[in-house]
């Protein structure tokens, strides 16, 4: 009964303005306004390009996380996975120098290796959750620890560094621009478009939503639940490997401190963007804005000395909570029904 009386007011909130969808965009615009007010250099071409490039890592990973979370799962292993893939890529490329020289071939071998590892690692997470019948939280908590210690082991506790000559060949992948936009941003754009199409325009995307809403009903509706869920983790793995491919040329190194807490940033980006943490509803567009918001907060905090350095985490936490509250809060509904 209450449901019926509530429903008609929903689309009319704020004179037809859908706060739920526009929430993240408004939050980002407000942040940009604050940034510009603090220092006009915030909107300089250089800073915007830095911001977008930086968002690309978390953004690409978060696009994958949107699928996992929409289908009712969670992947905590992405940060460690990125670190171990970066480490293995560096080892493989350094090893391939003797046979293939320091040219493009070696870089391609490294990238190929990254993609195989990403897909493989995602598949392992997926199969352990579905066929192994272990909660995703536990599986990926386990693989998170495994990958993190593996990269420490490969690096002998230290740092793995890419051969200096290959770095010269590989460097443009991070630092060069095409049509005014840095290459990582292009990768981010392509991944986002593919993600959006996959989630909103294919049967696979609808299955993800269905499984996230109610797994049993999806099972009865002849959806191959296990296969679809495994696929979401494979997509996540692929996204991690793409992010790693553009991460490695930045500093040419990987260590146990690579990608620490990326999993939480990616999950935060997804939730800020409007996807529901318990599954059943996902928005790629929101995820992209979420990733941009997270990077912008860090950027703005570096642009001001008004806030104590020790309170950076407080500011980030507050803005994340406010951004989500803007979409979830009941306050819009009350003003309308009165």
């Amino acid at each position, binding site marked *: 009964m209450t449901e019926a009386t509530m429903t008609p007011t929903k689309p009319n909130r704020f004179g037809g303005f859908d706060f739920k969808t526009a929430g993240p965009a408004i939050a980002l615009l407000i942040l940009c306004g604050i940034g510009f007010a603090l*220092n006009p*250099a*915030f909107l*300089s071409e*250089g*800073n915007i390009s*830095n911001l977008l490039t*930086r968002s690309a890592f978390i953004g690409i990973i978060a696009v994958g996380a949107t699928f996992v979370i929409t289908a009712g799962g969670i992947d905590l292993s992405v940060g460690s996975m990125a670190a171990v893939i970066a480490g293995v890529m560096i080892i493989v490329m350094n090893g391939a120098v003797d046979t293939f020289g320091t040219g493009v071939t070696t870089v391609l071998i490294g990238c190929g290796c990254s993609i195989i590892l990403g897909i493989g690692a995602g598949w392992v997470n997926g199969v352990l959750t579905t066929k192994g019948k272990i909660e995703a939280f536990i599986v990926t908590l386990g693989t998170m620890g495994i990958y993190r210690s593996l990269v*420490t082991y490969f*690096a*002998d*506790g*230290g*740092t793995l*560094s890419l051969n200096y000559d290959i770095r010269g060949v590989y460097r443009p992948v991070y*630092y060069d621009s095409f049509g005014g936009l840095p290459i990582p941003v292009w990768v981010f754009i392509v991944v986002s478009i593919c993600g959006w199409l996959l989630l909103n325009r294919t049967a696979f995307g609808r299955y993800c939503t269905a499984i996230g809403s109610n797994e049993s009903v999806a099972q009865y509706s002849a959806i191959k639940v296990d296969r679809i869920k495994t696929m979401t983790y494979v997509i996540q793995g692929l996204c991690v490997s793409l992010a790693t491919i553009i991460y490695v040329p*930045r*500093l040419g*190194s990987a*260590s*146990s*401190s*690579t990608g620490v807490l990326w999993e939480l940033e990616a999950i935060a980006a997804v939730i800020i963007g409007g996807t529901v943490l318990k599954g059943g509803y996902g928005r790629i567009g929101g995820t992209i804005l979420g990733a941009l918001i997270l990077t912008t907060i*860090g*950027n703005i905090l*570096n*642009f001001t*000395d008004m806030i104590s*350095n*020790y309170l*950076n985490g407080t500011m980030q936490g507050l803005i994340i909570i406010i951004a989500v509250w803007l979409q979830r809060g009941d306050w819009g509904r009350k003003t309308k029904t009165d």
Partner: protein
Amino acid sequence: MKKFSKISVMALAGLAFAGVAAAETIKIGVSYPTPTHAWAAGMNWHAEQAEKRLEALYPDVDLVLINSPDPSAQASALEDLVSVHGIDALVVLPFESEPLTDPVLNVKKSGALITVVDRGLSQPGIEDIYVAGNNPELGRVSAQYMKTRLKDGDNIVVLRGIPTLIDNERFDAFMAEMEGSGVNILDHKHANWNRDDGFEVMQDFLSRFPDIDAVWAQDDDIAIGVVAALKQAGRDGDGMFVVGGAGMKETIKAIMDGETLVPVDVLYPPSMIATAMDVTVAAFKSNGPVAGRYILGATLITPENAASFYFPDSPF
């Protein structure tokens, strides 16, 4: 229960004593955190090198190296060193001061000589020997070098480590030394001793401040990120320089080769564990007294002296 533990401690002390009296082997336990970052990996390597060297030098000295992944594991490791190995001396780099003070005190009660490295215990007077790097000195030496290169009105930015006591000591000493030099410190941000954070914080500093003459990165990992950001922005020329710290082998190699962007480094050596092991062995072998506090210098590494701090086989 209490009586029992007292008796067992006494028994262990007796055992340890018997070991010395029999003049067989001198057992020295060396306990430190499992290396999870480059500096600690370097420490692990230097500890292993020192073990080989000292055991070859003194056939009657037996060093037992144990690393532990967390404070409680380290506490158990200390118990094992006493009960299983019956050590005559302990060299310990505590994971954290507070939770390891009592375990180390128990080892002392067994009669062993205690050497504490780098991180002090929360109760004074437990250790016989203390060996540590000098954090305030690192900040001071960095500032002194900055002052030799910069003049009145020049601008620098500072990248700090993880917000901790170590970071504060370095930063406060640096600021105190810079005071009155006329050099402007535009801002300071935490880059968490991490390359990626160093890169991003420096990018933002470069967007924010059009005129920067030098960077104090405090740490070699941060400095690597800073250098990448400077090169990306094309602002690595015009006499710009970056000062890091710690003594990473790649940085020292570059200094030996005459790199101008990172011309010097300030030492905070992971090899201090080897110093501690040497001093502890000396307590049994030397005819001079060794108990006391050893605070290592924060040496400025320049192209002239770099070779003596370069260990190509160490992971750090």
